[in-house]
């Protein structure tokens, strides 16, 4: 069969297509109450978010057009849409990027809506503070979390070692590691992953010394001496077989959770975050829990802080800022929304919502909630948002240098010096 199309038919078809194309912007304009939302996360987060969106549409009549991406794809997409003057109305924002986006007006200040469209009267003060840049509110925290070590309880039981608790120190971990070595469980599982390339772990360690990774001015908050001490400590742990070896640690590319040391069964604990316990538990047959990062010495605390795990912000070019602010208000205050969300994005920041959510949580979620609520003397002040180049220092300096030490391409001494010079150079270049 042959298909023929005379000129008239062709023109007719073309006109129809053009007509449809011309109509669609009009169709979009008709829906001016539609909010566009973009966030990073997986399917579980999307299901919960869509659940809240349905509740919101039912209560306000405004529709929410929501889409999500993985962390790595999210930032290029958001930056590209922002560059095109087409940013979504509601964007998910991270503590790492909020200053950059706020200072470039890529997200809008929300102060004018507070008290009217945006009700924050019962919002936790420290979480509210975390969303401010230069004194103005740019992000509403969607939950608090904290760094935490993921602990494989089953492995500790097999090794006959008492699992770590809030008083565990780095020295205690050495002792646990010796016990793991002598028991030799699961083909030589080590007690801990190699944390030398973990930015949060280094930050926590520095904070216990009264220092910080970055100062409020966006400079390095430590010197060569501390960096050398850090790499030396881990080199010894590696040499003594307390933590995993270089080759094994390098399997973790900071990408999929499946490639992490605890999930691969290479180590019984590793640095992680309180809200990730749920996600990790789904990947493991063993009973997992979380514990604090080790103390540098008995009785020394202040390394942890309650971090806004993520924010919702309103796009700078949004034409519907007030409706977006109202959505944010609903998202954090509505008890029914809270029930749908649980603690997947972190611990809710409104106490009334916490009270509604707490009884509904499963055992693992309860652990996360209690952990963040009871940090006690481990808790220190919220550090200032990191400088814009922090991500680059993490990816292309700290992790590379830590691998160079692990594989023997640099001494710990050399690595400490190099790390400080190189990180300073990256900060300099970004400034």
């Amino acid at each position, binding site marked *: 069969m042959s298909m023929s199309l005379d000129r008239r038919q062709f023109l007719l078809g073309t006109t129809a297509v053009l007509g449809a194309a011309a109509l669609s912007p009009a169709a979009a304009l008709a829906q001016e109450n539609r909010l566009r939302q973009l966030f990073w996360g997986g399917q579980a987060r999307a299901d919960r978010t869509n659940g809240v969106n349905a509740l919101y549409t039912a209560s306000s009549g405004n529709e929410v057009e929501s889409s999500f991406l993985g962390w790595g794809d999210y*930032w290029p997409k958001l930056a590209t849409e922002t560059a095109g003057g087409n940013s979504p109305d509601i964007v998910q924002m991270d503590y790492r990027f909020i200053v950059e986006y706020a200072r470039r007006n890529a997200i809008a200040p929300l102060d004018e809506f507070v008290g009217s469209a945006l009700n924050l009267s019962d919002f936790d003060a420290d979480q509210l503070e975390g969303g401010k840049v230069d004194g103005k509110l740019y992000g509403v925290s969607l939950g608090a979390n904290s760094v935490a070590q993921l602990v494989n309880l089953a492995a500790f039981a097999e090794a006959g070692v008492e699992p770590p608790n809030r008083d565990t120190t780095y020295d205690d971990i050495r002792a646990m590691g010796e016990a793991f070595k002598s028991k030799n469980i699961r083909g030589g599982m080590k007690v801990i992953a190699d944390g030398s390339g973990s930015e949060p772990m280094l930050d926590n360690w520095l904070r216990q010394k009264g220092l910080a990774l970055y100062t409020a001015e966006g400079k390095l908050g430590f010197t060569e001496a501390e960096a050398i001490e850090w790499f030396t400590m881990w080199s010894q742990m590696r040499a003594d077989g307390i933590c995993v070896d270089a*080759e094994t640690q*390098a*399997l973790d590319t900071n990408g*999929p959770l499946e490639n992490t040391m605890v999930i691969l069964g290479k180590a019984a604990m590793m640095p992680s975050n309180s809200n990730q316990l749920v996600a990790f538990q789904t990947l493991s047959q063993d009973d997992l829990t979380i514990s604090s990062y080790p103390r540098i010495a008995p009785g020394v605390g202040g390394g942890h802080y309650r971090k806004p795990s993520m924010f919702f912000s309103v796009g700078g070019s949004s034409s519907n800022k007030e409706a977006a602010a109202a959505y944010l208000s609903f998202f954090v205050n509505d008890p029914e929304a809270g029930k749908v969300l649980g603690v997947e994005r972190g611990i809710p920041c409104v106490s009334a919502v916490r009270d509604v959510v707490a009884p509904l949580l499963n055992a693992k979620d309860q652990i996360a909630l209690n952990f963040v609520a009871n940090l006690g003397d481990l808790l220190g002040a919220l550090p200032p948002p990191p400088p814009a180049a922090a991500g*680059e220092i993490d*990816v292309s300096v700290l992790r590379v240098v830590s691998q160079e030490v692990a*594989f023997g*391409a640099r001494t710990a001494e050399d690595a400490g010096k190099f790390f400080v010079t190189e990180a300073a150079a990256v900060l300099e270049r970004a400034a």
Partner: protein
Amino acid sequence: MTAQSISASARNKGGAVGSTFWSRAWENHAPGYLFLLPWFIGFFGLTIGPIITSLYLSFTHFDLLTAPRWAGLDNYIRMFTNDRNFVASMRVTMFFVIFSVPLKLAFALGVALLLNRGMRGLPLYRALFYLPSLLGASVAIAILWRQIFAGDGLVNQFLALFGIVGPSWISNPNYSLWTLIVLSIWQFGSPMIIFLAGLRSIPQDMYEAASLEGASKWRVFWKITLPMLTPVVFFNAIIQTIEGFKSFTPAFIISGGTGSPINSTLFYTLYLYNEAFSFFRMGYASALAWVLLAIVAVFTAFSFFTSKFWVHYDD
């Protein structure tokens, strides 16, 4: 008729002569151009436009959120004077191209020679051997490669049969790049198909003459097959070299986009991607892209220059 109107009509006539050329050209080719229009829109809008924009951006600092700032030659100067990662990524990419291209071509030629011996079920084998080329750049294969070459992966399980304890190939900086080279060689299908076609077009009478003279197989290969095949070798070498420089997906997936361990798989394209989409330095990334273009162009030009001395065209 007045003089004025005559001159006016002459002008009109003159105008008509000029426009006849265009209108005739239009009449002859209009349908063609019309049908090409979608392609033109794509070509100018999606190819030429972005290329020119990226050339402009390579002379600016641009972070996507704020307007580009003119930077003159800053990006290029930094690249050649003060960027360790540029040097590192260039070294990784060169190593990859220099080893993967010849090995892949040799492997492809070997398989093509084997298949050219007139075996049964040739179309099936051809399809099977071509399959990796279709799959090779995919995410799934890169993930599979991770599993195969991991510490307790398939390769080491096989080695364990002989009592050898293999390293974790993909996460050891001494071997990680080689796993990517092996992956590239495994995708030998498309040069193999081209070699096969080339082998088929070598006149049989040459082989007949050689066998009458009693030439050994080895000698036949070096004196007849290979020289006759040089145009195809040349074509494949150029295409594969360009592909090698552009290689991105496997390294991106296997190292989680970081080029780890210790930047041993930091391909040039991966570095470019990170500069653009992880650190939002679009200007610098554009400059990197243009330098890559220049390098590929130089390599290709060099190949064409040397081809005079080793490629035989039978004319």
